[in-house]
């Protein structure tokens, strides 16, 4: 009979209408600014620079190698290398970025900078509320704003951070062993010591 299905439909929608007032389970909408869904661990939104210790300038892992700048598909990274050197995470003397800017409005969160970085220096953040009313200055993040501590990285991505920490610790141990060996050879004779120092300096460049 014509109209039977229509009547059924009306009953269904009426049930939805009154049911949504009676049981909160029916309303699946998350009221965003007040309520939030928990983020999954692999959440990624925008890169940040990792530093070790408490001083972000001294502990910055980035050595200004500019690989990420070259690999970035939308070209949102801008780096200027420093003139002088400072010790990096492993302890070697390295350059550091004098300027490191990322444009928030251009970044497409592809994580390629993270994949290519050989120094575990750039990682993805979970912070996603990056909007601002200043569309030029406010969207161009500089080194100071991008730097976040390794402890923070451990908090947002515990698994990845553990892997990266282990890797760095291994490298550091290797470097220390090398330095120790160099020291031992220096103790044995003074002539090879000078040679070692020259080769050591050339390897850092």
């Amino acid at each position, binding site marked *: *009979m*014509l*109209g039977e299905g*229509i009547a059924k*439909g*009306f009953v*269904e*929608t*009426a049930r*939805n*209408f009154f*049911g*949504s*007032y009676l049981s909160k389970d*029916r*309303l*699946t*909408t998350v*009221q965003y600014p007040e309520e939030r869904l928990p983020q999954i661990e692999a959440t990624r939104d925008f890169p940040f620079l990792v530093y070790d210790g408490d001083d972000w300038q001294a502990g910055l892992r980035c050595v200004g190698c500019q690989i990420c700048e070259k690999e970035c598909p939308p070209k949102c990274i801008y780096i200027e290398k420093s003139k002088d050197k400072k010790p990096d995470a492993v302890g070697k003397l390295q350059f550091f970025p004098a300027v490191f800017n990322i444009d928030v409005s251009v970044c497409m969160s592809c994580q390629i900078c993270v994949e290519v970085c050989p120094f575990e220096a750039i990682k993805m953040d979970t912070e996603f509320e990056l909007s601002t009313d200043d569309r030029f200055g406010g969207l161009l993040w500089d080194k100071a704003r991008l730097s976040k501590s390794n402890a923070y990285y451990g908090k947002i991505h515990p698994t990845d951070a553990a892997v990266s920490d282990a890797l760095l610790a291994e490298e550091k141990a290797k470097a220390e062993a090398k330095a120790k060996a160099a020291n031992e050879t220096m103790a044995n004779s003074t002539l090879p010591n000078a040679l070692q120092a020259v080769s050591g300096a050339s390897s850092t460049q």
Partner: protein
Amino acid sequence: MGETADQFFVILQHWLVGHAPASFRPLLSALFSVVAILVVFAFLFAITTVLERKGLGRIQNRYGPNRVGPFGVLQPIADGIKSLTKEDIVPQAADKAVHFLAPVVLVLAAFSLYAVLPIGRNMVLANLDSGVLYFFAVSSVMELTIFMAGWSSRNKYSLLGAMRAIAQMISYEVPLILASVTVIMAAGSVSTVAIVESQAGYSGILPHWFVFTPWGFTGFILFMIAATAESNRSPFDLPEGESEIIAGYYTEYSGFKFALFFLGEYLGMFAISGLGITLFLGGWAAPLSFLTWIPSYLWFFTKLLAMTVMFIWIRGTLPRLRMDQLMNFAWRFMLPMALLNLVTAGVWRFLPHGVVRWFVCGLLVVVPYVFLSRGLMQGWKLEKRVYRFAE
């Protein structure tokens, strides 16, 4: 006391007009009524938009707007500011004069409809002898504006939407008018005020509304279906078809002109609901005899609100029809039903009061319904779709 409350606005208007010199009085009196209609129905439009969005939200298990003001009640103000501050874009190839006129004429026509609706006892702007005729004449101006909008935009989608709208509105105007002709037959008048008065009595506590007769009930249902199609509401919203032809005839409208179309559409919906109330639901009359102490205009607006809720419920329930389904429904079901309903109304008029009359007229409604719906559903086969190449 009840009498004063009922006639409060009429007395107020007389008192206000009384201060003016005699030659200005008719003009001033008309002006007051016009302003009242403009303010009240524009306000009703504002609350209906938020009610509709909240109602549809709840039907779909969502919250609906709840950000602007407490429970989102100030949403219409935010919408208004938004549409006022938006850029008004007119396509380069558009017929600029007609493009501008279409929304303006639509709102004008929609407001003109209220001139003949009796909102309360003694509360009608113009008591025309041919009130119902006037209503249908002006409502066809609204169809014209829709075609103006579609044609002047120079856009294929707009024109498609306008063509669909015209086809739909002309088809559904026939059953709409035929359904109201039964009431005109029964009341013996085309004046809306006289039609309301002819339904004014009570037997016991029950009112003499036309909807409580077999032909009146059928007529009311037919009228409401046709009214839904006339006001371009879902499930007959093919002309707009947001999901397929991107708002159809007003695709090329932006900013406040778009808001005017919205306003015109809702005003048309209220007006045609108002006519439905006037013709079938006793106008401003109370539904039970002991409730007459409540002012008549409150009853009118209560009924109007109930009709609006019904419209929202329908929109939240039914999916959009296809063009051929729309036309089949109009010409193969609505039209024969409306014609047979005219016969039923005549039979009802000439049979003596009693059970026999109810039985005969009930049969005259139910039997055609069963057969016509069977005819309409002929060839409908609901089966699992078989794909030739996709599987």
